[in-house]
């Protein structure tokens, strides 16, 4: 399975709807400090079901909604969509294309969709967990986290091996 595209709208500094398409191999993301690169990483983690606002550098989940600038007002909705090619059925759902969408509103309410059909957050989380790309996989290494793998004690590292099984 592969990630084909990422759509970000109203999430953190991405006030305007932005689409990134991904291909095979290595895609580099570059830009000055504070331009929004790590916000892209967090958009993917959020859409895959990240539950902790602190894990996304905020205090409350609505902190991920575009907060406005001197020229633009704050927005009321953050949306992220992930699209996957699933022909190999790595995601346990019988569909060639899979689209995950997560929304949050300023009042804190949330909506979740798999292939445009409303669902719960846990449906998204378990879809990835069952396919081995969930929380404990090494598919996303956030900024400053590369040495986390060492900070675990020897007893905890066995868990890393167990989860790799």
């Amino acid at each position, binding site marked *: 399975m592969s990630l084909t595209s990422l759509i970000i709208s109203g999430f953190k500094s991405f006030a305007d709807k*932005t689409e990134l398409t991904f*291909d095979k191999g290595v895609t580099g993301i570059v830009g000055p400090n504070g331009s929004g690169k790590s916000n892209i990483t967090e958009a993917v983690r959020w859409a895959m079901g990240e539950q902790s606002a602190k894990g996304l550098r905020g205090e409350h989940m609505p902190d991920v909604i575009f907060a406005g600038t001197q020229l*633009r007002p704050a927005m009321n909705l953050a949306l992220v969509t992930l699209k996957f090619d699933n022909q190999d059925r790595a995601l346990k759902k019988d569909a060639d294309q899979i689209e995950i969408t997560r929304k949050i509103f300023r009042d804190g309410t949330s909506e979740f969709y798999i292939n445009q059909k409303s669902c719960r957050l846990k449906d998204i989380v378990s879809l990835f967990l069952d396919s081995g790309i969930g929380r404990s996989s090494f*598919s996303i290494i956030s900024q*400053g986290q590369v040495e986390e793998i060492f900070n675990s004690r020897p007893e905890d590292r066995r868990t890393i091996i167990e989860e*790799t099984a």
Partner: protein
Amino acid sequence: VRARFKATFRAVSEAFSEIFPKMFGGGQAALILTDPEDLLNTGVEIKASPPGKKLQKLSLLSGGERALTAITLLFAIIKVRPVPFCILDEVEASLDDANVARFADFLRAYDAKTQFIVITHRKGTMMRANRLYGVTMQESGVSKVVSVAISDQVSA
């Protein structure tokens, strides 16, 4: 369960020992069980000696050596349990240019089926990517993404 742990451990530790000299341009490393007699409770130790150096405590390694050893372990794990995509956010910040080049060569040579999305400000990584997206804030506080030609970005 014990048999599966043993098999997984062997696979990850073999991958770790194999990848380490590729990342470091030499040297050796291994994963060691703290208690091989007790597979249900044993911990896992990481041993690493960069090229030309004697084996020492992991804590004495330099900032760049630690980061590259952690990257090596990450690659050993995804070799044993492949992921469809892997996002790396500035993992090579503390590497010198020679180590960045080896790291980025390793990414580039990886099975093209695994997608790597690499956030970086290092030229060595940029020049080995298949494509680049540039993130800018032309309008203050608002991010915008454009495709960037690798040659332009690297000579910038």
